[in-house]
């Protein structure tokens, strides 16, 4: 689960951008290897032009709501000339892993999130883009990769903020229009990934370390701790004691039920984003009308091969405004599916494309994830009490961690979701230990 923005909201000490000195590194406090020469090499390689020269360079930490928990973001602006002598501006984000505390590092380690994101940006996303171009679809889904450096665990991609992309308000949630825009991109990403996997004989199936996986249970304290916090809160509501008891009874089987969502089953499978929620979506709003014009999907640290349900249930149960969350998921899934199946068809996907009903049935087998997201993930992502909001507080079981998780359930919107959906999930058998 991405704890994007958790840290950022609190101790964000504003830093000023500094003039880039000619000497290394490109600004004070930047990673020491991040020098002008480093960027020069990267740009030369990207443009395939050894005569490229940098004429101006400016860099600063990229803070604020854009900060991704899983790394450090640096913003770089470079003016350069290529062989043809013409001057160009490039805006980039450099994402690097950071030295976190030992506990957090060890917890994250088996999920391998830094390497995964690099390999996806380097190898996979460009190929997905190429597939879309094959059918003359120029729609941009992700940020363009400029360079990937495994040695330094660094990713350089285009800075989308320059084109007006910002993060939507995570506390409000998306409306139908925005939801459709995201699902449209997601559908194309999923479809191209299914085709790519087919053409490359199963190459994407090695991505098997999503948030629940068969290699590690390291995030269990987070997931189980949240369910326990939910149960404690819900047990205080008259008439809801039965749901608290059911949540408690789920604890012993919870991780197994989560893993089953990520187990690869018969039916159509895709490269799921793995952490698709408002903070991993950038939106470009029209300057005049304020209407959303375009969206870009970012942050592929938890990508995994599996059911589209992984992304659909996660996104629809975490990122929408209340009414749409409760009443309009089916409609949105239908919208997604039209584009998903159409794209598969255009790309001449060889395996059988399921009917919508079959797709619907296959998704419903993974509905545990809808419950998981609505009950636990939602609470964290909408948390307004950010004093103790960090990776440590999510993963630990000490008092601070317990207090933090309890605090997640203070948000009235989160409570509204629980009050509404716990009975619904219950009648569908999704709160039963024996599902």
């Amino acid at each position: 689960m991405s704890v994007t923005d958790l840290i950022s909201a609190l101790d964000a000490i504003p830093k000023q951008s500094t003039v880039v000195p000619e000497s290394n590194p490109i600004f004070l406090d930047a990673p020491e290897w991040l020098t002008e020469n480093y960027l020069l090499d990267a740009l030369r390689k990207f443009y395939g032009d050894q005569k490229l020269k940098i004429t101006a360079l400016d860099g600063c930490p990229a803070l604020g709501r854009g900060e991704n928990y899983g790394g450090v973001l640096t913003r770089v602006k470079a003016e350069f000339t290529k062989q043809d002598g013409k001057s160009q501006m490039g805006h980039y984000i450099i994402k690097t892993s950071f030295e976190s505390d030992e506990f957090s590092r060890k917890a994250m380690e088996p999920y391998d999130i830094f390497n995964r994101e690099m390999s996806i940006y380097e190898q996979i996303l460009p190929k997905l883009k190429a597939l879309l171009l094959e059918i003359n679809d120029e729609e941009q889904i992700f940020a363009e990769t400029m360079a990937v450096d495994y040695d330094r665990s660094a990713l350089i991609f285009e800075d989308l903020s320059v084109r007006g992309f910002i993060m939507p308000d995570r506390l409000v949630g998306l409306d139908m229009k925005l939801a459709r825009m995201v699902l449209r991109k997601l559908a194309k990403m999923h479809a191209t990934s299914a085709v790519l996997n087919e053409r490359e004989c199963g190459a994407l199936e090695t991505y098997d370390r999503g948030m629940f996986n068969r290699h590690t249970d390291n995030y269990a304290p987070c997931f189980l701790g949240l369910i326990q916090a939910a149960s404690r809160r819900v047990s205080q509501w008259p008439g809801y004691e039965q749901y608290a008891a059911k949540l408690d009874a789920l604890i012993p089987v919870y991780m197994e039920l989560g893993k089953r969502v990520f187990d690869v089953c018969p039916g159509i499978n895709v490269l799921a984003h793995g952490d698709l929620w408002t903070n991993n979506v950038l939106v470009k709003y029209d300057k005049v009308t304020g209407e959303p014009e375009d969206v870009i999907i970012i942050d592929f640290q938890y990508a995994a091969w599996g059911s589209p349900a992984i992304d659909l249930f996660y996104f629809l149960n975490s990122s929408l405004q209340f009414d749409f969350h409760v009443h309009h998921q089916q409609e949105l899934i239908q919208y997604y599916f039209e584009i998903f199946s159409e794209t598969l068809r255009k790309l001449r996907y060889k395996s059988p494309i399921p009917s919508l009903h079959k797709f619907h049935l296959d998704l419903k087998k993974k509905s545990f994830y809808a419950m998981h997201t609505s009950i636990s993930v939602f609470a964290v992502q909408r948390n307004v009490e950010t004093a103790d909001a960090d990776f440590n507080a999510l993963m630990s079981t000490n008092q601070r961690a317990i207090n933090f998780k309890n605090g997640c359930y203070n948000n009235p919107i989160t409570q509204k979701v629980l009050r509404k959906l716990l009975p619904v999930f219950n009648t569908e058998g999704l709160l039963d230990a024996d599902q």
Partner: protein
Amino acid sequence: MGETRNGNDADNFHPAPEWLTVPYVENILRRYKKDEDLNITDLSIKPATAKGENYASVMTRIKVDYVLSGSNVSETKFFIVKTTYENDAFISNIFASYQASTTEMVMYDKILPKLSALLDDTEQSEKLFANTIYVDYEHSAIIFEDLAVCQYTIGDRLIGYDLEFTKLALRKLAKMHAAAAVLNERQPGLLTKLDHGIFNRHSRAFAPMFENFMGVAANFAAECPELGNVYADKLRRLKNLVMEYTERVYDPQPDEFNTLTHGDLWVNNIMLREKTENRDLDMLLIDFQFSAWGSPAIDLHYFFCTSLQLEVRKKYLNELIEYYHGVLVETLRALNFTGYIPTLRQMWLQLEKGKFMAVVASLTCQAIMLNDQTADADFNALMLDNERSRNFKKVAYNNKKFQENLKHFLPIYNQCGLLDLQEWD
């Protein structure tokens, strides 16, 4: 000795069978009461089926006064005699292809009594069906107790059931389903050989009815502002697929929970007795012409889509499934069932899988059941494709309540992909 009085409410009722005479009834009663010297003192025969109320069989009500051997006291019994539509070859042939009367005879003769016996041994015991008096294979007749005299009536199909009535019906259904699963376990093959439900792999004689209704549904959608051409096209495309798709729901799946379905579970096939000071509301299931081995989804979707008040159907479906499942599992366990018992989630998924049944029931069966224009309401109107029958279907589709149901549920079915082409599994 005994007199017969024939209540001839001529034109609006179907006539009683000719062979239903005093000697005949006396014979049956002697057998039932195990008294060879019993004598009938009076026999009153009254046709009981009005036009528009029942499309497939003829009911006759008999009241018999008799005296047991060695007694002076006159006793009275009330029976219903159920026979098939004998005089119309067209209808007879269609129903014969479904083995409708044979199925029902076997049910009342051999199966329902066994289901009741199984339940009687448990705490879940309760009466589910009318007692069988006699099954006459030669005349294709079933004689069972007349529940009307115990104040059982048919509910109002035009209004439908509220939550309380719906739950009671589901309780009865769940117990029947559980008992049947257990009976099949103990006598393998007895029930699984019943495979002539309304949709089956032997006869498509009802196809004209279902297909024509899809056409009417498509026309309705085209004219309906809330629906429109997208729906009309999809429904039209479904016309030639509706039989196959529903037959798939009826095919028992090896990895699912299967049982003996009622096969035609709606308001008119449930006798109900209103609550009074002294006793609770009660219901009994009747009419087993289309019972077949298969998924409970068949009965549940059919019942939900034809027999519930709209508000109940809109708001409580999940709770009702949970309730049904609870009774089913409780009864299965009480009967020491050793087969596959689905979890609530698995039952829910099984119902989703069979949900095309809901589409058919909503578009066809419910139209028939909500119809309040009974002038042309008979089997011919359902089955043929002439002007009279087309008119009947159009009139049925004009029903406001029916339209309200469709406008609410068709978009839901559409979102699940139920109106689209399916793949071959």
